[in-house]
């Protein structure tokens, strides 16, 4: 991403103030008002731009972003795969886009059908009997699964189970969700291979444990080969087995969760099923549930009666006697569902197993080609992402972050850094299946070139100063946190301080 042709773009509020608008209106249908005396009297302070100015503003800003559309995006644990445009076309069909959540049911049978089609696919692909569709993202799905688990324990009179076990390599959302569910969190160590230490887990299991949350494949990019032994141990101790589905892309179409003894798992539709990340969402986190947890699923859900579909919206009815209640307004992330459905229908079961196959192939290709220069965390086969530790940089004077930032000048988004926390100086690459051999080779060549450069130890400042060709040099995050400026104001504090 070179600076050529990139424009500096002011904030919308820094454009001259006028009475311009980019929207023209028809006259209102009447002139009467009925506001009961609380009319706004002060100006708001919004901008005033015409349509050409607005389009240019955002187009220029967009060009300061890296994206999948412009390049390989190997962020580990994020599954930055191609976002097919058919998905976007389908969600914009008037029959999907222009429907209101509270239209009479006879006018939205197609919407219910689309939700059902997707949930049937998720049930088939995971082998679990039920899926809660409403969670809005992965973390929301975790909370959903844990709340169902808590409801099941309470239903069974097991109120003393108050601890959730989470491996130290877990995503931060796992402990945060457990704590939102009123549980205390304890960490289980990993063995030297980054897998859950089964002995340590067994030692801690007991009648105070509500659930164990495991990411599989784990955040070190390895399949938890003890998954079945873990689930047996968890179940024998009377606890439930939650699986974090962030890495489902590695196994989709190749393995059901039922086989692994899973009780609940969220599926990030914005990862495995190609719906766009949009610079931070929206996502969707449908959560599949085992037979013992299904009765506690949140409302709403679609059920079939005679030939018609209808929605159960309230907990406590015949069909929702044990439901934990409602987790989200309206009926879930419908627009995300349609995109995911369009993707799944396009690939089919055969395509989805090819997806996991190619994703794992690409990661292993990276692993083998880069291992001569970088230090792989694990020497055998990895799953859909490959983890290197920072030891190849020992003694070079270059830190992991500097190495990763230098990749930007080579035209690539850096991999995930310093995660998982159990590995020092971690670099986690997830290429996904939508990268061609050629683009992988380009990434590999660039990384090798940088590694050789770092090994020479001659130019640590080259790395420290990277990137130099991006729209901005390194930004001062300490300044941002010490003197937070979180919005534009007419007289910026920053200017005054200069």
């Amino acid at each position, binding site marked *: 991403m070179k600076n050529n042709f990139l424009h500096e773009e002011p904030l919308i509020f820094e454009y001259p103030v006028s009475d311009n608008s980019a929207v023209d209106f028809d006259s209102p249908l009447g002139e009467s008002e009925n506001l009961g005396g609380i009319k706004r009297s002060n100006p708001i302070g919004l901008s005033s731009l015409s349509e050409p100015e607005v389009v240019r503003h955002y187009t220029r800003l967009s060009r300061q972003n890296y994206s999948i559309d412009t390049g390989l995006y190997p962020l580990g644990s994020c599954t930055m795969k191609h976002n097919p445009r058919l998905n976007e076309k389908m969600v914009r069909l008037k029959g999907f886009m222009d429907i209101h959540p509270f239209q009479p049911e006879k006018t939205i049978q197609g919407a219910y059908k689309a939700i059902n089609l997707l949930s049937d696919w998720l049930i088939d692909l995971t082998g679990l009997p039920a899926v809660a569709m409403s969670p809005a993202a992965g973390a929301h799905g975790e909370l959903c699964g844990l709340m169902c688990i808590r409801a099941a324990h309470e239903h069974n009179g097991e109120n003393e189970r108050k601890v959730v076990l989470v491996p130290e390599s877990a995503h931060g959302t796992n402990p945060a969700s457990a704590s939102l569910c009123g549980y205390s969190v304890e960490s289980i160590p990993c063995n030297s291979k980054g897998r859950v230490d089964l002995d340590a887990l067994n030692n801690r299991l007991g009648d105070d444990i509500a659930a164990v949350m495991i990411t599989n494949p784990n955040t070190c990019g390895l399949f938890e080969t003890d998954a079945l032994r873990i689930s047996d141990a968890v179940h024998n101790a009377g606890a439930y087995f939650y699986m974090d589905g962030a890495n489902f892309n590695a196994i989709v179409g190749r393995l059901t969760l039922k086989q692994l003894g899973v009780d609940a798992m969220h599926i990030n539709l914005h990862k495995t099923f190609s719906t766009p990340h949009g610079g931070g969402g929206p996502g969707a986190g449908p959560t599949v549930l085992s037979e013992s947890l299904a009765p506690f699923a949140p409302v709403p859900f679609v059920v079939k009666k005679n030939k018609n579909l209808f929605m159960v919206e309230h907990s406590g009815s015949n069909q929702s006697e044990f439901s934990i209640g409602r987790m989200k307004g309206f009926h879930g992330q419908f627009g995300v569902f349609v995109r995911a459905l369009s993707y799944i229908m396009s690939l089919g079961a055969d395509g989805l197993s090819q997806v996991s196959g190619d994703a794992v192939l690409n990661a292993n290709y990276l692993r083998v080609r880069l291992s001569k220069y970088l230090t792989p965390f694990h020497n055998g086969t990895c799953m859909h992402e490959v983890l290197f530790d920072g030891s190849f940089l020992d003694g070079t004077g270059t830190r992991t972050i500097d190495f990763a930032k230098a990749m930007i000048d080579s035209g690539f988004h850096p991999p995930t850094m310093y995660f998982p926390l159990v590995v020092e100086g971690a670099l986690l690459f997830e290429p996904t299946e939508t990268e061609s051999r050629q683009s992988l080779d380009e990434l590999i060549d660039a990384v090798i070139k940088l590694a050789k450069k770092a090994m020479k130890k001659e130019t640590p400042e080259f790395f420290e100063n990277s990137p130099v060709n991006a729209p901005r040099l390194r930004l001062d995050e*300490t300044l941002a*946190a*010490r003197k937070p400026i979180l919005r534009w104001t007419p007289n910026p504090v920053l200017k005054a301080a200069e």
Partner: protein
Amino acid sequence: MEGYFYTKEHEWVTVRDDTATVGITDFAQKQLGDIVFIEFPSLGSVYSQGDEISVIESVKAASEIYAPISGKVITCNDAVEGSPDLVNLNPEGDGWLFKISEIESQELNSLLSHSEYEEYIKKITE
């Protein structure tokens, strides 16, 4: 560092005229990196030794501070509130965090001396 006592959680404490001054050690500030914020305890609140008393934050980390000694918080370091970088520059001087009165001074015996703390740092960084 005569008269300074240390915890394994990297707080230091020193007592003068029955008032304890508390801060974090140089080792702790290096581990955290650029300090951006300290969540101070409210004045007058009473803590027992080992209680979580405040939180200190850098850009990418947050760390709890535990009371090295029991007592009542009487002063927080205003200078540090305005310029948290004081903790990085001089953690065991101008970068002190708060003062505690009504202390139980026999509790100092359970803490590490300067040389013991140095020994401890050596052990955990090996």
